[in-house]
């Protein structure tokens, strides 16, 4: 007697969440803009016959001129501003996405173990997080990047090291309440070890929170990287990054604001997009949050 047409079409939670995300036009627009900027940063520099560290002494401090090869002009070494900005974007986006991924993974595992195991181990692990929170952020990053030997890899490691704390705290809270649920008890009764339970039950159940939070980590990493490069302790000249380009732009802003506006505008656009995407993901994964 059952009427097949009345039965709901089975849909996975994920496909429902993705559909909710696609209906959010602001988030979708952000995705499109972000993809365009990423394509420009990763492919754009190859369209020009020079790279961003190459000085053209015949065209020093050239202004915006769409008829010349230097579309947005050059800096006071005759280096092409657009190419430098795109190359800086490549570094920032790489560090941002990779950094958020690594920091997210570390945070999830740490938080899941701490929250699930509980007791004294939990207290010790959380005290460590608290101590690391107490560090002045800049000093910690400088010390760590010195400790890791300087350079971009050390900077990356230092950024990750400072950013896994908040996901760890969030996941711990979730793991704590998950640990009391019946299906975890059932898993234990069936003879699963703590390690198996954490990896197959706790971690997957925290995923939606983690995805939402990690999407917020990406702009945070990019912001931190450019903040440090702005201060001259992140990515250093002659290699371009949004932070050190903006720093150079502020030094020259009273005479030539173009050097500030292009990298600052691109950085702000990327951060806007990432924030809107994170909001969209939160609404899609966690409609009750709003």
């Amino acid at each position: 007697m059952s009427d097949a047409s009345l039965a709901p079409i089975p849909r996975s939670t994920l496909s429902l969440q993705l559909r909710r995300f696609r209906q959010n036009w602001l988030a979708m627009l952000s995705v499109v803009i972000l993809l365009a900027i990423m394509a420009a940063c990763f492919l754009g520099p190859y369209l020009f016959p020079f790279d961003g560290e190459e000085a053209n002494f015949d065209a020093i401090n050239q202004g915006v001129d769409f008829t010349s090869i230097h579309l947005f002009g050059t800096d006071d070494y005759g280096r092409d501003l657009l190419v430098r900005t795109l190359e800086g974007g490549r570094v920032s986006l790489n560090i941002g996405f990779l950094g958020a991924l690594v920091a997210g993974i570390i945070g999830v595992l740490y938080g899941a173990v701490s929250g699930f195991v509980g007791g004294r181990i939990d207290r010790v692990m959380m005290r460590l997080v608290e101590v690391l929170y107490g560090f002045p952020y800049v000093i910690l990053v400088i010390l760590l990047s010195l400790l890791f030997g300087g350079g971009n890899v050390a900077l990356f490691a230092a950024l990750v090291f400072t950013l896994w704390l908040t996901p760890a705290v969030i996941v711990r809270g979730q793991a704590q309440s998950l640990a009391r649920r019946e299906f975890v008890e059932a898993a234990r009764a069936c003879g699963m070890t703590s390690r198996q339970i954490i990896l197959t039950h706790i971690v997957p159940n925290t995923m939606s929170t983690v995805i939402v939070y990690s999407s917020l980590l990406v702009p945070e990493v990019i912001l931190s990287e450019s903040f440090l490069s702005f201060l001259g302790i992140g990515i250093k000249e002659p290699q371009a990054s949004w932070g050190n380009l903006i720093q150079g732009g502020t030094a020259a802003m009273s005479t030539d604001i173009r050097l500030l506006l292009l990298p600052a505008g691109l950085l702000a656009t990327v951060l806007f997009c990432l924030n809107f995407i994170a909001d969209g993901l939160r609404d899609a994964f966690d409609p009750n949050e709003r």
Partner: protein
Amino acid sequence: MIRFLTKRAGDGLMTLAALVTLTFFVMRLAPGGPFSSNRKISPDILANVQASYHLDDPLVVQFLHYVWGVVRFDFGPSIRFRDYTVSEILLSGLPYSLTIGFWAVVVATVVGVTLGILGALRRNSLIDYSAGVVAVIGIAVPIFVIAPLMQVYFALTLGWFPVGGWGASWRNLVLPIVALALPNIAYISRLTRAAMIETLRENYVRTARAKGIGRARVIWHHALTGAILPVVAYLGPATAAIITGSIVIETIFALPGIGRHFVDAALNRDYPLVMGITILYGGFLIVFNILADMLRGWLDPRVRNE
């Protein structure tokens, strides 16, 4: 109350002790030292100089020496700035950072909470959308982009305020305070709006209205007390970070605060100054977290009884 305070103070001291230990050894593990420079120093002189700062003792002895000093509130001499002690350096810069930071916190809280409440009361109205735009800008556009743009527009183009520097006039303070407050306005208005919307749906708010208490009093007295709790929790750590000086703001506006020492001390391997700054920041963080928890307990009996 006294039990709560002693427990929190004890926890704080333990955290601070761990922080001091960790900073001390991480700092010493990092390569380079305060006297490694391009200029060659003769080994005898180097040995003499190092001995005068006790840098030739075994690390553990140095650590105990330092801790004994900290217990007596003696944070040692700065290595980079000769003839100055760490306390002198930090105390001379702190008034500037505290002034800017204090007003930035006040502005951020007042403006942020007001925007949040208005947004929550008139959802999807013009003011809600404007507050939303301000929030998105404040969160997404970094302070080191906003501050130079403010300099260009308000100082160079309009000439309302000086570009930077510390002067007798209040005009010097306006741009740095606004720039420092803006990202916090953004966070606080978002937190307030979300919490206010939730609180207005609570049973106790409906009960208060049903008993005939006026709308304004319910909003400002009953609902706001509940809605402000997440803001207070945010303000604890945020205040510690803001009043210890923003490196970016102090660099861009050329202010003589302590923010720049955070970078310089670590880069120069000025060991005592790094330790001093870490203790100062860590101390502020602990104190303001305790204050925030006390305030939350005073506002909300549920927190108090935990």
